[in-house]
């Protein structure tokens, strides 16, 4: 990614190590979520981001804290990458009062104004409007912010995406549509749902559209940074297609997957295309880190996540009286 002519700076190294750490954080977080589900401690379901960590991290590292993101049902990675605290996230996942949404939102609706997180959304493509609107505000208020709309490739089926891209381009809004193509929409291969050419779907509305290897965090980051800078400097909306894979089922309960995808396919991605493994290997190769150091990162985060889980498990539920609060502001 860094071209041969550019010498590596210490900021760059710090960024790479931070991105590595953030990816591990997400993976450890999600590991605990799976545990909570398996141990029947979590109400409902959750959609794990494992395998896709490089996208959230690569993109969010290109953003300021005040910049906006919108997220999806598979949203834990985006939240964490944008700076959310695992304590409050786990508390939310368990429906506890200490959660980001006082337990009212759950896994699919974590939102956090402090980190510019406009909220995860359980309607496929449900936040395209919200992200575009946040970019509209940024533009009108002149506060220099940028909005990123994360969505799975399943959202390409929803017409509202095209309405929003059209509006964003007409109004020259600082919004980046980040499509995470993990090949499946629930239990159906994306090629069954997606005719034509994905990038062209954005280009047709005048957006700059690029695709990137979603398993390579440095590639994601570099491209995202360019599009973010472009948006911030008035260049308008763009579309970033990230090719990726989810290792687990559509949700934690989706265990038997052979009817829609093969174990070999899963194995290949996990062993050959893993964003953390590959980034780790590269860091070691480049001598920016050694294996024990990376191992420590993993251990630290594992124990951090376990503590966060403990906090959440011990935290109290909201009071009954709260059910009717927050309906109206």
């Amino acid at each position: 990614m860094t071209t041969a002519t550019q010498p590596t700076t210490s900021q760059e190294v710090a960024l790479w190590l931070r991105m590595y750490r953030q990816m591990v954080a997400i993976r450890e977080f999600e590991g605990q979520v799976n545990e909570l589900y398996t141990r029947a401690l979590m109400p409902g379901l959750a959609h794990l981001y494992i395998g896709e960590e490089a996208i959230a991290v690569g993109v969010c590292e290109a953003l300021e804290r005040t910049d906006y993101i919108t997220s999806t049902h598979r949203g834990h990675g985006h939240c964490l990458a944008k700076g959310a605290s695992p304590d409050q996230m786990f508390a939310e996942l368990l429906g506890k009062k200490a959660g980001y949404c006082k337990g009212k939102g759950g896994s699919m609706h974590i939102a956090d104004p402090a980190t510019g997180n406009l909220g995860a959304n359980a309607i496929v493509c449900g936040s395209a409007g919200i992200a575009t609107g946040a970019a509209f505000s940024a533009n009108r208020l002149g506060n220099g912010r940028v909005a990123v709309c994360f969505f799975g490739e399943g959202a390409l089926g929803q017409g509202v995406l095209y309405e929003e891209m059209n509006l964003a381009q007409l109004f020259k809004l600082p919004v980046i549509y980040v499509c995470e193509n993990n090949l499946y929409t629930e239990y159906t291969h994306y090629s069954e749902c997606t005719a034509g050419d994905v990038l062209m779907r954005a280009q047709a509305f005048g957006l700059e559209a690029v695709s990137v290897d979603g398993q390579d965090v440095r590639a994601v980051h570099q491209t995202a940074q360019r599009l973010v800078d472009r948006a911030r400097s008035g260049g308008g909306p763009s579309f970033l297609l990230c090719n990726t894979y989810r290792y687990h089922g559509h949700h934690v309960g989706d265990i038997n997957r052979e009817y829609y995808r093969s174990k070999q396919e899963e194995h290949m991605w996990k062993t050959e295309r893993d964003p953390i493994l590959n980034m780790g290997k590269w860091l070691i190769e480049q001598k920016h880190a050694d294996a024990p150091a990376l191992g420590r990162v993993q251990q630290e985060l594992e124990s951090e996540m376990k503590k966060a889980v403990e906090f959440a498990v011990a935290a109290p539920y909201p009071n009954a009286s709260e059910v009717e609060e927050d309906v109206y502001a």
Partner: protein
Amino acid sequence: MPETVMGGQKVRELTFAQAIKEALAEEMRRDSTVCIMGEDVAEAGTPFKVLSGLLEEFGKDRVLDTPISEAGFTGLAVGAAMTGMRPVVDIMFGDFITLTMDQMVNQAAKVHYMSGGKWKVPMVMRTTMGATRRSAAQHSQSLHAWYCHVPGLKVVLPSTPYDAKGLLKAAIRDENPVVFFEDKMMYKMKGSVPEGDYTIPLGVADIKRVGEDISLIATSSMVQVALGAAAMLEEIGISAEVVDPRTMWPLDEKALIDSVKKTSRAIILDEGYERYGVTAELASVIATGAFYDLDAPVKRMGAMHVPIPFSPPLEDLTVPTEQTVFEAARKLCGR
């Protein structure tokens, strides 16, 4: 615009449309985050010419023509409202709210609650309702009942120019998504409107006419129909009270119930389809709240359970008229 003075404020005769525009213009002057977007709202000032002049005063940045993308720009408004703007979206015909249901119901209405009170959505959707314009089934519906059903939304149905101005200003200042339904047939109706600032709180009904024998509880265009019927009823010695809830949610239940407790008879009038609509809720609230005072079942009168037909003689049958309300009231009073 003839002028008088009322409580220190100059009062003019304005049309309903002028009252709406005045409310918007005043709010836009007061608060630079208020903006308007919709199809043909800028140069054209909407097909109903309600917004004419706003573009000239506030410019293209605050009065925005959009593509024909009701879901798209409504969704954009949700996000804009969350992040510092107070957008007013214009949905030309109320029939097109079909296209905005996801943005309004799954997004706007729920953001505040789902985020545990952290994000707010101070936006207004202005749209229209009302039949008898010979516009056929896809341009004549009054679908406000759907939004009334949804927690997190507020729903306003003004019936006079005075109310329209005061309620719209309150809606714009509200911290929640508010849907504001304007009857297309009322845009040219005139009424007294004070100059300058005043608001009408959402959730307060208004007695449009005091009476003793029967309560006509009417929304939007049906308020005029009720007043007309009340005048006819007076001639045969029946004194009708006309109560306008003004906002469907929050709903001023007490005012409705108190009126019926006094009169012991009620007709509910609303231009939406009668079945599973606004008339059902209001009738049910009253049947419960005034249970021991009612002398007869609450009568509901809404739009007939048919898609609105184009043919004028058919279309005219589908909505309550002064005559049909008069007859129903007379019958209910046992005359």
